[in-house]
C-alpha cells in the first residue's frame, strides 16, 4: 500500500466510523420553532433524583419534571400545585401544637405513565427519606423532624413531628420536599437493592409528575423534555424543552447572542452588561434567591485543631474597621452592573430584614481611626503593625472569575487604610473540603474567606446562623464534622436562633431575627457584601409577551405551563 492509499483507507475508515456513530446516536430531531424552547445550562445535572443532588442545575432540571406539593411565585406567594390547599391552623391542616400536619392532595392526580398519584406515593416518599439505608442527603431536615407518617385516605396523609414545626414549606413544600417518588417505580428497586442511592432510575428516570417528561439525555450534551399531558395544570403550551450544556460561559453567551439559545438561567452578575449589549432582544431578569456573598473572618482559637486566624481579627474594632474600609457600593455598581446593592443583614431581601439597622457606609477615615485605636499603627512601609506583627491577612476565595475581580478591588481598598492582604484562590473542591480532608476553610487556612451563605426567604429560621455561626458547630479536632468554620460563638445569638426555629409566635420569631441581625452587625464575624441574585436572560423575540420566572428559593419554572413561543 502506498502512503496515499493508506491515507485514503484511513479517511474512509474514520468517515464510516463517524457515520455509524451518527446512526447510533440518531435522535428525535428538533427545530428551534414555536414548539421547542432551547435553554442553555452552564453545568450538566449530576442526578435526577432531587434527594441526591446538591447542584442548582440538577434541581432546575428536576423542577421541570417533578411537581412539588406547592411552589412560590416570583413574589414569594405560595401556590398549591399538587395539594388542594396549603395547610394552616385556620383550615385545620396544622394541629394546635404545630406537631401534626394533615395534607390533602387534589383529586384525580396522575403520573406521566397514567398511574394514579395518591397519598400512598407521599407516604412512601417520606418513608424512603426516613430510612437511613437510602442516605438521602437533601432529606436531612425532614428526617430529623419526622416521627411518623400515616395514610388517612387515598388523597390525604398525616405527618407527625417530634417538636412544633411552624414552617410547612420546610417539610412539605418546595424547597424542603420538591420531589415525590413514584411508589410503583421505586418500591421494587428498594426491595431489590435495599437502597435507592445507586438506582439507575435516579440517572434515567422514567415516570414524572411535573410539566414535562425527560425524553432523552445525551450525556455531556443535552436533555430533551416533552410536555406531560397528565400534568396537574394541564399540558404546557410549549411542547418541548431542550436543555443544552455550555460549560464555557463565553460560548454560552455567544449562543444566546446568536439566537441559538432562547433562555439562560445562570448569567453571572459581572457579565450582565455585556450580555445585555450583545443582543438588543435579550431581556434580563434578576430574582433574589437568598444567597448572600460574604467575607468570613477566621476567629478560631489556637490549639483546638484548625489554624487560628490573624491575631488582629480577634479585636472587634479591627473587624468593624475592615467593613468600613470596603467600598461595597462601588463593587456592586462597577463590577456587578448595579444588579444588586450592599447589605449588612444576613436576612437581606427577605421579609425578616431589619431595615432600620441600615448599611455601614464606606468610611476609610473612620476605619483608619478605629485601627489606630486598636493599636495597629502605620509602619514605615505603609502597612499597619502592632508589637512587630504586620497587619497582613490571607484573603481567599474560589477560582470563580467574578470573585477574583472583587478580591482585587478589595485588596486595593484595604491597602488605602494600611491593611495588606495576600490574595489566594482555590478550586471549590479544595476550598470547601471537609476538615478530615484538609479543606482550606475547615482547617482555618485563611484569615478572610469569601463565599456565599444562604438564608430562607420564606421563614426566619436561618440555616447560616444555625449552622455556620453557632457555638455547637465550631469545627475542631473534637468536632470534625462541624459546619462553623469561623470559630464565632455567641450564646445569646444561639438562643435567638433557636427561637426563630421553634417559636409558634410569628412576632416572637421576627423579634429574634432582629436580635440576630443586631448581634451580627455589632460582632462582625462576617462582612456581608451583597445579596446575590439569580440572573436570567431570555430572547423576547421568541416569547409571546413577558414571562414570569419564579423566585430562586422555589422553582423558576413555576409558571412554565403559561409560557408561549412565537
Amino acid at each position, binding site marked *: 500500500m502506498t*502512503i496515499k492509499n493508506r*491515507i485514503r483507507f*484511513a479517511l474512509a475508515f*474514520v468517515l464510516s*466510523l*463517524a457515520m455509524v*456513530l*451518527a446512526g447510533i*446516536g*440518531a*435522535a428525535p*430531531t428538533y*427545530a428551534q420553532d414555536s414548539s421547542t424552547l432551547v435553554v442553555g445550562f452552564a453545568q*450538566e445535572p*449530576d442526578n435526577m433524583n432531587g434527594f441526591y443532588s*446538591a*447542584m442548582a442545575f440538577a434541581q432546575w432540571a428536576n423542577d421541570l419534571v417533578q411537581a412539588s406539593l406547592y411552589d412560590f411565585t416570583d413574589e414569594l406567594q405560595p401556590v398549591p400545585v399538587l395539594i388542594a390547599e396549603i395547610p394552616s391552623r385556620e383550615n385545620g391542616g396544622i394541629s394546635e401544637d404545630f406537631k401534626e400536619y394533615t395534607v390533602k392532595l387534589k383529586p384525580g392526580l396522575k403520573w406521566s405513565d397514567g398511574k394514579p398519584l395518591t397519598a400512598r406515593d407521599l407516604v412512601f416518599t417520606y418513608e424512603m427519606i426516613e430510612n*437511613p*439505608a437510602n*442516605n438521602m*442527603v*437533601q432529606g*436531612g431536615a425532614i428526617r*430529623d423532624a419526622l416521627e411518623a407518617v400515616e395514610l388517612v385516605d387515598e388523597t390525604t396523609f398525616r405527618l407527625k413531628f417530634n417538636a412544633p414545626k411552624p414552617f410547612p414549606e420546610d417539610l412539605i413544600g418546595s*424547597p424542603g420536599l420538591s420531589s415525590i417518588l413514584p411508589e410503583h417505580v421505586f418500591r421494587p428497586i428498594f426491595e431489590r437493592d435495599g437502597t435507592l442511592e*445507586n438506582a439507575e432510575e*435516579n440517572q434515567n428516570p422514567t415516570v414524572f409528575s411535573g410539566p414535562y417528561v425527560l425524553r432523552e439525555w*445525551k*450525556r*455531556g*450534551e*443535552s436533555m430533551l423534555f416533552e410536555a406531560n399531558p397528565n400534568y396537574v395544570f394541564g399540558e404546557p403550551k410549549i411542547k418541548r424543552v431542550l436543555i*443544552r*450544556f*455550555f*460549560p*464555557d460561559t*463565553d*460560548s454560552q453567551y*455567544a*449562543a444566546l*447572542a*446568536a439566537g*441559538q439559545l432562547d433562555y439562560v438561567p445562570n448569567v453571572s452578575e459581572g457579565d450582565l452588561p455585556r450580555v445585555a449589549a450583545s443582543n438588543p432582544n435579550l431581556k434580563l431578569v434578576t430574582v433574589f434567591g437568598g444567597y448572600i456573598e460574604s467575607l468570613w473572618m477566621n476567629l478560631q482559637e489556637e490549639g483546638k485543631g484548625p489554624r487560628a486566624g490573624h491575631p488582629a481579627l480577634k479585636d472587634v474594632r479591627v473587624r468593624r474597621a475592615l467593613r468600613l474600609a470596603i467600598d461595597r457600593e462601588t463593587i456592586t455598581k462597577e463590577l456587578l452592573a448595579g444588579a444588586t446593592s450592599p447589605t449588612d443583614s444576613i436576612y437581606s431581601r427577605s421579609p425578616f430584614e431589619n431595615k432600620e439597622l441600615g448599611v455601614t457606609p464606606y468610611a476609610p477615615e473612620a476605619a483608619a481611626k478605629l485601627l489606630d485605636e486598636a493599636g495597629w499603627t502605620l509602619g514605615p512601609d505603609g502597612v499597619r503593625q502592632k508589637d512587630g506583627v504586620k497587619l497582613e491577612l490571607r484573603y481567599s476565595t474560589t477560582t470563580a472569575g467574578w470573585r477574583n475581580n472583587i478580591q482585587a478591588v478589595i485588596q486595593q481598598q484595604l491597602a488605602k487604610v494600611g491593611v495588606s492582604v495576600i490574595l489566594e484562590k482555590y*478550586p*471549590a*473542591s*479544595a*476550598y*470547601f*473540603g*471537609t476538615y*478530615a480532608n*484538609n*479543606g482550606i476553610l475547615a482547617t482555618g487556612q485563611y484569615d478572610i474567606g469569601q*463565599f456565599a451563605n*444562604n438564608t430562607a426567604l420564606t421563614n426566619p429560621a436561618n*440555616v447560616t446562623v444555625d449552622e455556620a455561626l453557632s457555638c455547637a458547630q465550631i469545627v475542631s479536632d473534637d468536632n470534625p*464534622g462541624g*459546619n462553623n468554620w469561623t470559630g464565632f460563638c455567641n450564646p445569646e445569638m444561639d438562643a435567638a436562633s433557636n427561637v426563630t426555629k421553634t417559636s409558634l409566635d410569628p412576632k416572637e420569631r421576627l423579634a429574634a431575627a432582629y436580635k440576630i441581625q443586631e448581634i451580627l452587625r455589632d460582632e462582625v464575624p462576617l462582612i456581608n457584601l451583597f445579596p446575590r441574585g439569580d440572573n436570567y436572560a431570555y430572547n423576547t423575540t421568541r416569547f409571546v409577551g413577558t414571562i414570569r420566572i419564579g423566585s430562586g428559593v422555589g422553582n423558576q419554572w413555576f409558571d412554565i405551563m403559561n409560557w408561549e413561543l412565537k
Partner: protein
Amino acid sequence: MTRYILRRVLQSIPLLFIISFILFNFTNSLGDPLAIYAESRNRPSARDREIILKRLGLDRPILEQYLIWLVGNDWMPPVEIPTDNGVRYERGTRRGVLRGDLGISFVTRRPSWTRIEERLPWTLVLMIPSYLITVVLAIAIGIFSAVRQYSFWDNLITSVSFFFYSMPIFFVALLSIYIFAVQFKRWGLEPIKWGGTGDGTFASLLQHMVLPVFCLVAIQLAGYVRFIRSSMLEVLNQDYIRTARAKGLAEGEVVRRHAFKNAALPLVTLIGLDLPFLLAGAVVTERIFAWPGMGRLFIESFERADVPVMMTILMVLSVAVVVFQLLTDIVYTWLDPRIRYS
C-alpha cells in the same frame, strides 16, 4: 520479534502499577468530593456526610484506598454505618480494577467506565478527523515549503502557521464563533452552527464539527509543518538525492519516493507519541464548543474530585501510551527493513 513484544509487554506491567500508584495519590489530593455541599441550600448533616464517606471508603488511609481500587472490598469485613438506632453493617461490593471493576463515579454513582463509554466515541469523532487533516495538510505544506525553501510561499506559509501556533486555543475558538456564527448572522449570511454534536443527523454533525476541527487544525498545524519541512530539508541535501537526480529521475519522483519516504521515519515517532493523546480529547476546545468529549469529562471530574473517573481516564491514557509506543516500534521494522529487534 515475538519475544521482543512479549518482553515489552511484561516490562509494562510493573510500569503501569507504579503509574497507577502515583496517579492515585495525585488524584486523591486534588480536593474533596463532599465540598459540593458547602454552598448548597440543604446542607447534609455531619452524620449524612460521614455515611457518604464510609460508603465511598474515603475515611480509610490512602494505601488502603489504593488496595481497594486494585482488588476491591467485597472480601473485606463489612463497613460500620452509623444509624439512629445503633450501627448497620454493609458489605463492600467493589471488585477492584484487577477484576475489571473500575469503580463507581462519586458524582453520578454509575460505573466510571460507563461515563468513559459515553464520551470516548465523541472524542474520537472530533480528534481523529482533526488529526488526519493536520497530518495530511502538514505533509503537503511541509514538503512544499522544503522544496521551495526561502521562497515567497515558504515565508508566507511559515508566517501564517506561526501566527496560529502562537495563539491560545480559546482565543481562536471564541474568535471563530464570533466571526462565523455571531457576525455571519448580523451580515445576513447563514451562520455556522456550533455547540454540541447537532440534532442527530450526519449533516448536522458535520456542520457542528466545522469550527472545532478548524480550531484544532489551526493551532496544531504549524508544529507538524516545521517538523516535516526540516526533516525534508535534511534528506534533500543527502548524496543519494543528488544521485537520484543525476540518474535523471523526475523531480516529483525524487521528492515523493526518495526524499519523503526517508524523511517520514521521524514523523512516525512523532505520530506514535501523539496518537494516544487523541483519546484524551481537547479540554479547551471541547469546553468552548460544548463537545461531549473526554477532555471535558476530565475537567468536570476534577472540579468535583471524582477520583474513580479521573483514574479511569488516566489509566486508559497510560495503557494507550504503552501500547502505541510498542506499535510505533513495530511499524518501524515494517517501514525500515534495516531495523531489527531482538
